[in-house]
């Protein structure tokens, strides 16, 4: 078994520290009024106290307080579906994965036991919806109105996609890997949710087919029994209930690749462009942008004048975080936060800042992160029609009493 010692070593410490943060009860005031009217905290099968946005298709955000920890528990992990045909666990009985396509030499059909027989990789990685924080866009744009909980970070385990592709024999003209899951549209006229990734990303040793999440089977609503894990890339490529892998010499042409999940060319930094899906005017949303969030205290909390600890997490596309600054005055002045040791290049990095004595009054807390490549959170919103990649530092208010 190939195992990443770094993660194995980190696991114990990470799992051992229960959150002492207060449960979030507020629905952010800067979400659209209609979103505020329908959003409420709910329990679901396998899920505890998530912020409901919509029930069908199911979309639920993690509450902000879970991000005091570097690992997001399975029962607090966000849920995002495009189509209402969500499979049941019973539907997944007898699940298998097909590996086919014009660029495959030897088509395969794999069962769960076959995946368990392959060498297993483990990676601690953030999975974030491209539209996370869309709900805070000003002006608002259409779509699922995510607050800041359309994300999570988990220990994913399973075989590397490249080992499966190797077993199937990839032809030299292979260009993209097309991905399909078991979730289905309600009518045949709706295009099934299908995505693709370039060969380069497919052959990356960190791209795995996860059959375990935080040492447990994947929750149904996170893609049971197997989902693709594409570290550093937005969640739309992390196909849930993965049933079919098609290796092709041609780019995937469908609504989900050519129309949805695209941003204006050049608006966001990208290290490795998804060349076969680039046009002159737009590019697919792929690599995450650097970002951070304060998870404790929460917006609207009262804190003591003797001082308190500001805690949260920061993450990026995989360069790693090397600085988080925190402001108590809405971004007027900044102090360096303390960083926990890094748990992996794709993982959350925790930060904290202990304040001194503070006078009574309202304070506007903000965090901003910088990656090892010098990429810092955007100072101004980069408006785009889909409301993607919102990483502008967002102040929260606390009252010192």
């Amino acid at each position, binding site marked *: 078994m190939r195992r990443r010692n770094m993660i194995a070593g980190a696991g114990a410490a990470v799992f051992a520290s229960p959150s002492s943060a207060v449960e979030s009860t507020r629905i952010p005031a800067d979400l659209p009024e209609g979103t505020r009217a329908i959003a409420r905290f709910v329990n679901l*099968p396998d899920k505890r106290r998530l912020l409901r946005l919509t029930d*069908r*298709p199911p979309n639920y955000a993690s509450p902000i307080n879970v991000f005091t920890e570097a690992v997001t528990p399975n029962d607090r992990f966000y849920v995002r579906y495009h189509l209402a045909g*969500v499979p049941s*666990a019973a539907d997944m009985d007898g699940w298998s994965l097909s590996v086919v396509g014009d660029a495959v030499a030897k088509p395969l059909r794999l069962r769960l036991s076959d995946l368990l027989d392959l060498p297993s990789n483990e990676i601690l990685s953030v999975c974030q919806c491209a539209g996370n924080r869309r709900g805070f866009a000003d002006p608002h744009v259409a779509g699922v109105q995510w607050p800041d909980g359309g994300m999570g970070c988990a220990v994913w385990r399973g075989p590397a996609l490249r080992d499966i592709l190797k077993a199937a024999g990839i032809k030299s003209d292979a260009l993209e890997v097309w991905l399909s899951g078991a979730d289905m549209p309600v009518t045949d006229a709706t295009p099934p949710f299908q995505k693709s990734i370039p060969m380069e990303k497919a052959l990356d040793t960190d791209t795995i087919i996860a*059959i*375990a999440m935080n040492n447990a*089977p994947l929750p*149904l609503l996170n893609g049971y029994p197997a989902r693709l894990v594409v570290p550093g890339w937005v969640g739309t490529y992390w196909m849930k209930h993965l049933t079919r892998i098609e290796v092709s010499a041609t780019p995937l042409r469908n609504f989900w690749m050519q129309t949805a999940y695209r941003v204006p060319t050049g608006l966001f930094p990208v290290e490795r462009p998804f060349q076969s899906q680039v046009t002159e005017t737009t590019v697919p949303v792929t690599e995450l942008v650097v970002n951070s969030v304060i998870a404790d205290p929460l917006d609207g909390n009262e804190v003591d004048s003797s001082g308190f600890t500001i805690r949260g997490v920061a993450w990026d596309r995989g360069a790693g975080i090397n600085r988080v600054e925190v402001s108590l005055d809405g971004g007027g002045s900044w102090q360096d936060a303390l960083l926990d040791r890094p748990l992996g290049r794709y993982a959350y990095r925790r930060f904290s800042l202990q304040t001194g004595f503070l006078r009574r009054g309202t304070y506007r807390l903000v965090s901003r992160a910088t990656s090892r490549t010098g990429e810092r959170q955007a100072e101004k919103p980069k408006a785009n029609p889909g409301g993607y990649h919102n990483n502008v530092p967002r102040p929260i208010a606390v009252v010192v009493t």
Partner: protein
Amino acid sequence: MRLLLATLLAALAVPGSRSVLAEEGRAPLQPGVGEDLTSANCNACHTSDYIVMNSRFLTTDAWKAEVTKMRTAFGAPIDDATAAAIVLYLGQHYAVPAKP
């Protein structure tokens, strides 16, 4: 490791996963002319919460674009007259005025 995971997988019984849908919030759409058509057509694929969630910040034209997207990109079987009635309803209850 394989045995452990196999045991975990076997132990995972998620009876009635459809209960996600059973808990579904009921359509809180505002009453008015066209509400029935809007609910009947849109709810085939998603709850009315999708409409309320996206309010109020879209103009009537932006709602029209959303309805068009549902018909063309998602294949919603809605004819022109019905689409026009839905846009009218959304424009009256869930839109903001266009900026001059």
